[in-house]
């Protein structure tokens, strides 16, 4: 089996690791940052091996449901869970806009102390995925990582140009 596509996101926070850990594992705290411009509601958050994190995000009349199941908790260094899109009954569903998007993403967050700061690293890997799901994820990542920023700049330029032409 070849290596699975992995999406990596890193960020350094200006706070001690124990505090950052709390913001990821306490429902009262996670609801205050997880999800921009939405009402962020953890319905269940059992931070233990096999425990569930059921999260709803509301904006306007819309709701998005996410279901996560913890598979590793190594306080305060590492959190691993299986992340899926869900319906309102918290059953795993496909993403209606992206049918080939991996149904389950193995999500790993590591917290590393760096002086007074905390280095956070988030990775996503398709879990028990079909070839189509892996290909879709690979496409999205390669688009995003290599040259996608350049591609985006190019596209923006292109679209601006087009709009200019339409006005001309």
């Amino acid at each position, binding site marked *: 089996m070849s290596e699975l596509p992995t999406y990596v*996101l890193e960020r350094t*926070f200006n706070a001690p690791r124990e505090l950052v850990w709390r913001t990821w594992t306490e429902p009262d705290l996670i609801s*205050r940052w997880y*999800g921009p411009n939405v009402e962020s509601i953890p319905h269940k958050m059992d931070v233990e091996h096999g425990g569930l994190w059921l999260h709803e995000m509301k904006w306007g009349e819309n709701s998005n449901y996410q279901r996560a199941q913890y598979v590793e908790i190594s306080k305060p260094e590492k959190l691993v869970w299986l992340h899926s899109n869900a319906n309102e009954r918290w059953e795993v569903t496909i993403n209606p806009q992206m049918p080939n998007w991996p149904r389950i993403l193995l999500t790993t967050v590591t917290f590393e102390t760096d002086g007074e700061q905390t280095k956070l690293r988030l990775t996503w890997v398709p879990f028990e995925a079909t070839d189509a799901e892996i290909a879709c994820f690979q*496409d999205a990542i390669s*688009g*995003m990582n290599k040259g996608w920023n350049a591609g985006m700049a190019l596209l923006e330029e292109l679209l601006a*140009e*087009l709009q200019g032409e339409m006005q001309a």
Partner: protein
Amino acid sequence: MQQITPSPQPENLDAVFAALADPTRRAILTQLANGDASVSELAEPFRMSQPAVSKHLKVLERAGLVERTTDKQRRPARLKAEPMQEAVKWLEEFSRFWSSSFDQLDDLLEELKKSES
């Protein structure tokens, strides 16, 4: 997060991603932004054979990024920007979810540190 997509998205987003992943195809789109072009006109700057350009055009057509007009002599290709705009938007939302969430987390951590000290 990938699922936060308040605006309706096209179903062929996978095809759009795949189509845009290739530098030659992006260059073809740029050229088409300057106006409709036939296969032979497109082939020129790339020093590619016409069948090779046709192949790229088919991928772009399937993704809905390009349409071939019915001018029987040349069948010039024409850029259709809408699906591309959707793909750009989708990707922007995807990465924006986490970066905006992390901005909020930054603020929260500052607040928590203050209340603890």
